[in-house]
């Protein structure tokens, strides 16, 4: 049987299948079941500084501003000292997962202020996170900030977090970088240990009846996988960062493809949300079987075998393929 052991961010994982950041990470029994059937690590759902700040300010507006405003009601809630709004809940959850899971627990962080990024990262490290996944997300809507400036700002954030903690830091990226390899090189330079490709943004949809935007969660499908494979295949051999695929892995073969493209780890979210731990068991089994059938003894042997560096028809990763595909698609 193929040995699925892998190294991700310097952590020894028994399996490349990592439960990605999602609400499931609040559910300890499910996570334990996932680990039982083959998950190699767990990424907690993101600690969103923006959300914490918004909640703090909402509490300030809707609770604190009603203290000492009325002759009869001194306030409308019990004294507030026990209800601090911050990372406590997250840190407690991290502590619980660390205590009850036998695999590495990676904390995920989305900050908005320089102090927020580093402050929370330090807290996560102190609470026992094995690594931190930075969830970089900037909505580029400032007409005065160009791509270079935005990327430089993001690299500065990564640098500051790397400096603030001693545990490894990976970065989860958006698929929309115009010069991905260069940006990944930049991440390497500032000390990141890994890169996760890619974040899936929950884009709003529209309700045409009510003329409003809607925010439904749409789970991934394997149609989303190729763009990940492409990025992995392109970067394999060009970066010393560990790489993980995230988005679109639903079958064992999807995971196998990600590994053959160059991934050290493969994150699962939608499949587990839909099927529960059974998805992990299934994908783990399928992946093992496939790699075994392909004759790989270890995961390392398979990793990057079909990357741009190693594939026999590597030009397929290149632009030429795009033109051919389009031609082949023309109606007959």
């Amino acid at each position, binding site marked *: 049987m193929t040995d699925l052991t892998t190294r991700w961010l310097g952590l020894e994982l028994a399996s490349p299948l990592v439960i990605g950041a999602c609400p499931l990470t609040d559910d300890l029994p499910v996570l334990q079941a996932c680990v039982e059937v083959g998950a190699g690590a767990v990424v907690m759902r993101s600690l969103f500084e923006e959300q*914490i*700040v918004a*909640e*703090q*300010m*909402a*509490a*300030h*507006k*809707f*609770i*604190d*501003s*009603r*203290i*000492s*405003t*009325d*002759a*009869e*009601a*001194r*306030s*409308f*809630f*019990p*004294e*507030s*000292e*026990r*209800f*601090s*709004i*911050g990372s*406590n*809940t997250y840190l*407690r*959850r991290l502590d619980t997962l660390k205590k009850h899971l036998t695999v590495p627990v990676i904390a995920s962080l989305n900050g908005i202020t320089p102090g927020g990024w580093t*402050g929370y990262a330090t807290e996560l490290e102190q609470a026992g996170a094995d690594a931190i996944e930075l969830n970089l997300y900037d909505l580029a809507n400032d007409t005065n900030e160009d791509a270079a400036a935005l990327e430089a700002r993001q690299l500065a954030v990564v640098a500051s977090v790397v400096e603030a903690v001693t545990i490894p830091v990976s970065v989860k990226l958006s698929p929309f970088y115009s010069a991905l390899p260069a940006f990944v090189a930049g991440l390497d330079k500032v000390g990141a240990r890994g890169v996760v490709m890619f974040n899936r943004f929950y884009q709003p949809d529209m309700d045409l009846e*009510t*003329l*409003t935007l809607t925010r439904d969660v749409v789970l991934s499908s394997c149609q989303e996988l190729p763009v990940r494979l492409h990025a992995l295949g392109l970067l394999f051999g060009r970066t010393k960062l560990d790489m993980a695929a995230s988005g679109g892995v639903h079958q064992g073969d999807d995971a196998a493809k990600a590994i053959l493209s160059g991934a050290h780890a493969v994150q699962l979210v939608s499949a587990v949300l839909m099927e529960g731990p059974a998805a992990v068991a299934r994908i783990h089994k399928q992946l093992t079987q496939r790699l075994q059938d392909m004759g790989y003894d270890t995961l390392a042997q398979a990793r990057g075998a079909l990357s741009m560096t190693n594939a026999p028809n590597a030009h397929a990763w290149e632009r030429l393929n795009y033109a051919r595909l389009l031609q082949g698609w023309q109606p007959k």
Partner: protein
Amino acid sequence: MAFKTLEGNEAVASVAYRCSETIAIYPITPSSAMGEYSDDWASLKRPNLWGVTPQVVEMQSEAGAAGALHGAVQGGALATTFTASQGLLLMLPNMFKIAGELTPLCMHVAARSVATHALSIFGDHSDVMAARTTGFALLASGSVQEAHDMAAIGHAVTLASRVPVLHFFDGFRTSHEMAKVAYLDDDTLRALMPADAIADHRARRMTPDAPVIRGTSQNPDAFFQAREAANPFYDRFPEHLETVMTRFAESTGRHYKLFDYVGHPQAERIIVLMGSGAECAHETVEWLLEQGHKVGVLKVRLFRPFSLQHFFAALPDTVRHIAVLDRTKEPGAAGEPLLLEISGALMTAWSQGQLTQMPRLIGGRYGLSSREFTPAMVCAIFAELAKEQPKMRFTVGIKDDVTHLSLTDDEALSIEPADTRRALFFGLGADGTVSSNKASIKILGEGTELFAQGHFVYDSKKSGATTVSHLRFGPRWIRSSYRISQADFLAVHAPQFIERFDVFEQAAPGATVLLNVPWSPAEAWDQLPYEAQRLLLDRQVRLFVIDATRVADEAGLDKRINTVMQACFFALADILPKAEAIAHIKRSIEETWGRRGPEIVRRNLEAVDASLAHLHEVPLPGKVTSQRRRPPLISGDAPEFVQKVTRLLMEGQGEKLPVSAFPVDGTWPTGTAQYEKRGIAQEVPIWESDLCVQCNFCSMICPHSAILTRVFDPDDLTAAPDLFETVDEAGTEGIEDLQYRVQVAAEDCTGCGLCVEVCPAKDKQQPKRKAINMQPRLAHRDAEEINLAYFRSRPEVDRTRIPRNVRGLPLLIPLFEFSGACAGCGETPYIRLLTQLVGDRLMIANATGCSSIYGGNLPTTPYTTDQQGRGPTWNNSLFEDAAELGLGFRLALDSLQQRAAYLLQSVAPQLPETLVQQLQAPCETLDDGQVAARRAAIVNLKEQLEDIKHPMAGELARLADELCPKSVWVIGGDGWAYDIGYGGLDHVLASGRNIKLLVLDTEVYSNTGGQQSKATPIGAIAKFAAAGKETRKKDLGLLAMSYGHVYVAQIGMQSHAAQAAKAFQEAESYDGPALIIAHSPCIAHGYDLVHSADQQRRAVDSWAWPLYRFDPRRTPQGLPPLQLDSKRQKVPMRRYMEEEARFRMLELRDPERYELLVAAATEAAADRRELYQQLAGIHLEAQNPDGEHPHD
């Protein structure tokens, strides 16, 4: 000795908590905070003096609390409670028992007026004096320090003496004053508590190990002697107290006596009084002594048992003239209680020969309902005492032009020491002014050697409320128990105050004045109205301005300007070096908000740093430059009473009104809120007629009737103002010939935004533009004022033409408008809807609570009349008896109706037969056509009666209006319905009478600040449920349904208006008792109420709030009486709970418990659904009218 800066309530509670094992309470203003502090400390497991966390239990009423206390002390526990006013009155029966059984207990009362012609939350001794016959010792304190100390003395002496103690201090003046006090530490308190007496108390406890019987019934042969047997305990009480006070002095250096005399050793004139007024008298006497007067004040600490020995020991022999002041009124008495007590004491001493010359004794009333008591009044009393023929009975602080009892005082007199700094702040409730002033007092009280005092005055509005903070700082003890009249620092935190009030009147000459205004320093002066400029020049102030709103906004603090203004205060007031002061403020912000989260701290610190750069001095020009006068608060066309009385109350000048200005029996005109144009919204909804679909959701949900929808006969609109736009009525079938308009009352709107939120009509090209949109108020004020006046002046369309469905109902004119309820209030729309349905035939019995405050708190009230002058008539009796009051209304109506019917029958032979038939035909209150016809018939009857010679004709004419049926509704909150008033509510439902009860269920005691009630749901954090309530909400509806004959509905009109409208109409048409339980979104739920429709929908869809109607009329039809308007659960309970801070707080505090309680709430909803679904399927056999089953 450690100093702390505490509020009076906290100072007392901190002692009572540590000296007790059991605390049974019930919230009532102004004592609620003592219970809240205790509950909070208990939830933190803070121990008492003996290492145990006291049990704090909230009861269903004060009567319940007293019963629990009685049991606790009988069981050998050390117990306490906190209460006031009617709460104390509810405790009286148990107080007699506790005292009769000689059981140690010390309770603390923030003394408050007892409701008479009106409710008042403010302070006087009428409650305490009503308890003077209970057998409790009455111990008074007059300042925060004294209240702190006397609390300890009270707990010690009750144990030593076995006589229970009622310790009281003045509501608000002391209970809410913040002051620097020497704090009693645990060791001092412990040393004071008599261990042997505690052991004796324990030994007397009831236990089956040594059984006794108490609470026997006694006959004439035994009762009297047994009652007298307790005399020695009362006789010895003064000595016990003296001993405790001496021991207290030994450990603290503060030596109290039963009667403390301050003044000239050979004083000839003295004043005797108790409570906070004694501090003012003390300060004034010291000032008068400096002027060479031989005067004094005798402060009474122990009123009962009254010790003649100690009284005469304290009274200088030289006294010839005594004025005794009572802060209470006993109509018809020879004198008020303290006066009579002193009078009796003097007479006894004279009779015994101890007194050779009887001093002249006069008595006066002062300070009722927290009326100011000032040095000028003290001087006036001394002056009266010096007269040859003083008034034997007098009042001070008012102008009595009816019975001419009042003394005149020199309002301009100020005796405050020059080294006391006095600062006055006018703030808005929500801007944080009071919070930051409390922080400033702490900074100065605990960070410096200075003494500090803060007193805070709030108006009665729940939205756009005004606060006035009175702060004093100085090197000496502050005894000034009255408001600041001459401030050397005066800050106006909201520009609108300059337009509304004489805010600068209280600026001392040379004062520093700080304004938060959006004007630059260059333009500021010219923006001020004439009156303001004149005053500022007269007083030669130093004027500073800052645009604090902008500074706060830029720091991300919205409109919360408090830290900005606090920084400016310290920068200008020159009490501390600027840098030191700023450092203190920052530390205080970190301490206060650090527990909430770092971002709040960061933004507030940023605001502080930015503030001084925006602070500018405005040099005073040599002359008044403004021609603009302050606009009148009310328009000239208001009725005379409103002009003469209400206007002054609104302007904050009510204290100047003489006695003759007031109704003698508490009867006031309705419909006055329309004259109080508060203009508190920055933005108001403006109608876009081209987009409007005439759904009327906006007016249906508006909490303040500030957005109105109406239809008009086109012929009535011929003289419409230019901007008065109407469109063809298109939303409601059958009235298409009419014109439709949405009208905003811009100056009455609170800007909550609910109307815009629920507006479904959108511009197709720019969907964010709706049929109503929030626009700057000032840009639309003038036009909309004209439009509103025209809108209101148009005749009402025949009401019978308006369909009674959810689209039609909002077109009926509401008779409840512009209340002072919170922005976004979820209660008021229900009341408005009720008045739209039957407002002109409506009698309301209102339980005390939010709905009685926004419904009936002066200066203006929202219930109003229709164009014929009819409208709701309203009364509030108590918190607990609204249902009974309403039943009384019904009984009276039925009696008068019966009498009128009898008279009609008697006179009938002389009346046209058709008229009599018309008057005897059925008439439903809900049927506008029948009601209109009946009223027309009554007019006809009255005309006929004028020409009829019949001995009963006159009486029939006077009672004829009772031939038209009236509707009786009882309104109250869940505290009333589920807790304190449940017994009455239940009884009234059981009575079968035609009476309707509307429960505005906010699931907490909203008016007193969010204490849990039995309506509080599982998992919610509330006061007295700080760890999250773990029991289910009481199913009030199910209990009512169990009678079978009660119409019951549970509704939520913010999200399901049609069901709510149906329920109101079914309840009204039901000839019997009806109960409507209305989901009422409230600020105590902790979310932005602009989303209340969505959140209520979640409550309904999760089955946290199922909608149903139970109609007994369906049973005879073979239908199940219960109809579920909520079918299945559509959203998880968690989804509902996570949106409100009351649940979210628990998740933050204790996620595991939160999960447990979410699961419990889910299970409770599932159980309820299962039960209701089964009930909704039950077909009950119809009963015959006799209630017996035939041929069983």
